[in-house]
């Protein structure tokens, strides 16, 4: 395996540790659409994640994890008027999904979390 690849895994391990260290870390999710274990209907789904602090939207990430564990990175819309939100959307077919978010607060703290939900026909 290439050195670059090794370096990548090594950094992800680092990130996991940093994130797992602070189970209740700094930027916390105070509201979301869909909510935790929510059910939404299939088709175009707009998603909003609201935090307690201002988020660096460009340097945060939202990943959609499907049932088969495959991951898709969703584009976060730049939203200057709502600095504490991460807005995104996806076209979803029925099934169970998990949103895996990682937010970089403006003060430099990284937090991550999961929002599992179900899509019905």
């Amino acid at each position, binding site marked *: 395996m290439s050195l670059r690849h090794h370096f990548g895994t090594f950094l992800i391990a680092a990130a996991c540790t940093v994130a797992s260290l602070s189970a209740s870390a700094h930027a916390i999710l105070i509201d979301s659409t869909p909510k935790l274990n929510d059910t939404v209907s299939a088709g175009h789904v707009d998603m909003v994640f609201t935090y307690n602090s201002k*988020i660096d939207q460009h340097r945060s990430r939202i990943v959609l994890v499907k049932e088969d564990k495959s991951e898709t990175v969703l584009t976060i819309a730049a939203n200057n008027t709502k600095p*504490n939100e991460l807005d995104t959307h996806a076209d979803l077919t029925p099934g169970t999904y998990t949103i895996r978010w990682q937010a970089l607060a*403006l*003060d430099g703290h990284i937090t991550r979390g999961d929002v599992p939900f179900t899509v019905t026909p």
Partner: protein
Amino acid sequence: MELLVDIFGYLSIILHGVTIIAQSMMLGGILFLVFLARPFTHLITQGDDLERRVTRLTLYSAIGLILAEMTGVGLQIAVVMSTVDLGFLDVMQAPFAIAGTVKMLCALLLIPCLGQRVATRSLAAVLPLLIGAAELTAATFTTHAYARLDDNVLLLFVEGLHQFGAAIWVGAIPCFVLALGRLHDAHSWRLVGARFSRMSMIGVTSIVISGAVMSFFYIGNWQGFYGTAYGVMVGAKIAMFLALLALGAGNLMVTERLRKNQDASVIRMRRFAEVEIGIGFTLFFAAASLTSVPPAVDLSTDRVTLHEIAVRNAPAWPRLTSPDHDKLAISQMQARLDTQAQQRGQVAAQANVPGSGVLPPRNADDIAWSEYNHHWAGIFVLLIGFLALLHRAGVGWLKHWPLLFLLMAGFLLVRSDPEVWPMGNEGFWVAWRDVEVTQHRFFVALIMLFGLFEWAVRTGRLRSAKAALVFPLLVSVGGAMLLTHNHQISNVKDQLLIELTHTPLALAGVSAGWARWLELRLPGRGGRIAGWVWPICFMLVGVILLWYREA
């Protein structure tokens, strides 16, 4: 390499603590230099020597700040780059990276400004002060204040005031200790003492005002104070602040007596100031771990009620028998995996992969297991405190009491992580990747080390006065580290209830360490009192551990 990074993750809070210490010492050094050492250079004997030494200490602090900041920000940049797929230059434009770079640049710029050539010019005072102010401003941009939704300007200002207060008071104490050690006549002590207590008062006022405003904005109400991790940690900070105030008041009395030309114990002032450094630095570690939890006002659910605290801490008989190792969640999971694998004729998978970031499962037996460990550790510590007290009272052969620490360390090493060798399936080395295991081993090593040192000192195997200081230093470091230690339990409430007992534990540990320090270093009545205080602190630790419950 992965192993290194995992341990690095645990170090991130500690690294932040080191950064705060270095920053406070650098800023405190600048202020001490500009407002005390330089104005007095020609008024006190050995003034030149003092100025040189304070300058050097400030330089070292600046270098320390550069190193700590570079490591901390570097790690953070690397993590963002790899997890969000961004280029280095992109991440460098993130506010935290800019703030970190400015802090490093300020510290770097300070180095030539403290040099001989600049120090003699008219700008000598202005330049370091300006650089310090710029560094302080940058530092506020990596606090909660910058990411808050409202009142940013006010909160940034208040954060700045808080850090300024910490710098002028706690950060300048090392310089003060340096001065007390260097100067030898009552006239110099009087001058330095009076000016420094004036500076401390400014510091204390800044801390109190800013602390009150921040508590109002970040904690909000009474329940936020006792019901959240943030509030509890602020409580620990207040307790240590009060201890610092008491020591500071003691020093103020000495200064006043000196001013009135009365007899006063400068040695006591010096020893108290040393302890102030220790407690002040511990406070900085508490501050560092505070930045990793959300402000209490934001945590509206998952708060602990007084009732829950009362239920959890209702007196109960300690658990002196251990549950079966086979009944623990991971053991059972492993057993299931083993039978499944056997049916399919495969090699069984490992139930728990250390360092994977997945929180291990816990059942009632796991809780019982952990309580049993804490309770026996409590018995050990209680016994240690009691024997030390008896030895102090004159029972000579009890000088071997520190050996009990080794027994306790062995017990903890075997018991604290049941999924790991020798009790569990995981190998000794691979388990280092689990942050909690690493923390436990760190504590075990610490306990062994200070036990051995204290035993060697008590039995006359080590005769140097410095060797005797290892025990109090490591005990207080252990206490400070306990403030940054967290149990990886997914339930926020449970975690907080555990923290509620671990925080007093940490404070008692820190007090024990510094009381022993005073016993060793302070002659006369003060030292004798301290000699009785620290075994009692140890016994208190034992009682708190015996009281500890997880359900």
